């Protein structure tokens, strides 16, 4: 009986209504995921700075727009702030020998205080809202269709720039550093510089996404970046799985980048469905973590399925039997 009541309470119209908003958010998170893609896939570093730099981007954008700066100019400064955050993580890692993952955690931790100060001056503030009626923003949830369009255009431009950059001599050197550091050094690449550069570019992207998200939702909040590394990873992984399904690993770099953004959109549509099903939103993070863990484990488990000690042991036992 209760199941029937539950299903009767689900209104498909509500689901359809929620989709455009989720697509818009998904695109913004997809842009954030492009930053995660650069560190996680190209540099082979899991950079946790992003949880802080996403918020930094949002805080800087909102504060500067409130101060009268045009929204796009505020976003540019936010991008520079993210660049600086990545730079600090990179220097902690390469100049002071702190393991990359720990360097990211330290920067992220410090950014918590920095972000509070950005939003509230000396005293600090945990959030700052901006009224889309009083300020001209690039995108807002009041006009979802426009927000989607703006998101798609920005994503297109960013993907084009990244495609170009990682095809240049410098971009190739960054990719080589992630693929084989020893070889890169032997080819005369300063791998420390490449890591710093990659981390800076990545966090610049993430801060931009944070700035766009703050404009979209109409506020910056100290917690807005919490867990963004996991959401970014989810988008990267969903995108890769889809991309491989369509192109069988033959996809070129631009297509892979497009699918990262698509991964972000799909993630948010799934979130929308989960919420529509009235599953407890408190468990969303648990759900996301489980999904990401499963997808990260798949390549390893596939390898195990092909060859493992357990399997070898079984085969060996069969021979004796």
């Amino acid at each position, binding site marked *: 009986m209760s199941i029937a009541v539950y299903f009767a309470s689900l209104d498909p119209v509500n689901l359809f209504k929620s989709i455009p908003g989720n697509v818009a958010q998904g695109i913004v998170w997809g842009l954030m995921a492009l930053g995660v893609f650069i560190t996680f896939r190209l540099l082979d570093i899991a950079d946790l700075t992003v949880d802080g730099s996403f918020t930094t981007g949002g805080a800087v954008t909102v504060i500067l727009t409130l101060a009268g700066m045009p929204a796009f100019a505020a976003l540019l400064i936010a991008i520079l702030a993210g660049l600086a955050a990545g730079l600090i993580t990179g220097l902690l890692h390469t100049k002071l020998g702190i393991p990359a993952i720990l360097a990211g955690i330290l920067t992220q931790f410090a950014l918590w205080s920095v972000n509070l100060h950005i939003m509230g001056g000396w005293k600090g503030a945990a959030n700052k809202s901006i009224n889309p009626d009083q300020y001209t923003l690039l995108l807002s949830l009041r006009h979802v269709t426009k927000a989607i369009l703006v998101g798609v255009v920005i994503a297109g431009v960013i993907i084009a720039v990244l495609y170009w950059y990682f095809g240049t001599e*410098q971009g*190739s050197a960054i*990719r080589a550093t*992630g*693929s084989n550091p020893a070889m890169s*050094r*032997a*080819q005369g690449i300063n791998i420390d510089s490449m890591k710093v550069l990659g981390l800076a570019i990545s966090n610049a992207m993430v801060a931009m996404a944070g700035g766009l998200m703050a404009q979209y939702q109409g506020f910056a909040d100290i917690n807005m970046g919490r867990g963004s590394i996991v959401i970014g990873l989810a988008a990267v992984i969903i995108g890769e799985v889809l991309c491989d399904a369509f192109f069988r690993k033959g996809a070129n770099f631009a297509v892979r980048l497009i699918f990262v953004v698509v991964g972000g959109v799909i993630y948010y549509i799934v979130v929308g469905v989960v919420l529509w099903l009235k599953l407890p939103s408190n468990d969303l993070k648990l759900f996301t973590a489980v999904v990401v863990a499963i997808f990260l484990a798949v390549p390893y488990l596939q390898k195990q399925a092909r060859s493992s000690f357990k399997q070898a042991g079984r085969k060996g036992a069969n021979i004796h039997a």
Partner: protein
Amino acid sequence: MLDINHVYKTFNIGTINEKRALIDLDLHLREGDFITVIGGNGAGKSTMLNAVAGVWPVDGGSIVIDGNDVTGLPEHQRAAFIGRVFQDPMMGTAPNMQIIENLALAMRRGQKRGLSWGVTKTERDQYREKLKILGLGLEDRMTSKVGLLSGGQRQALTLLMAALRKPKLLLLDEHTAALDPATAAKVLELSDRIVAENGLTAMMITHNMKDAIAHGNRLIMMNEGRIILDIEGEEKKRLTKADLLQKFADVAGTQEETDEVLLS
């Protein structure tokens, strides 16, 4: 072309594992010299090559390549002068990148890497010709990821990459040791050809005494961080495996030990 002047290196100084790896090492290569290096495990062969390549700083002495004192330069700056092939075939190439991208990376060894294209159109044809020389059919797979190649193919590619931008010095660190005998022979032959065709100055470490005798114009034997034998020219051509074992015994101890150390 290369001057190793009284170089010292000790690992784990002040600990129970202290190891004096290079002791007053002095070696001078003329342009076009192709030196083969033999010696037992822990003799200092790889340490010598790593000292030249700049994997870590030396404790004393100096290293000069073609008149440039590189003692104070880190590995990636010395790379401008040096082409390298490692023992591990996986180490010399970037697996996630295409064959052509790997070649393009090697072409820019020692150059400034700016914002022009990583691989240009004209390079493409040039690399196709170079890959044909290997005779492995790689010229038809230029956009394949290097990770898909076999160890032998990767080592051949690494060799090609090391000489693509003519280095002052080619360092081969037991680069055939991890390959099967047939592939090893092929890669060795290719090494000879690349050294000869480009007139390179080269150092090759090997565990195989026959290879050490058959290749190059000069042979050195190392033991406990020192060079204990240095033979070149006609004398080297007449050298036999038995001679080497005898020479090693003369300088370094009894015959039994020699066999054990050299053949290990």
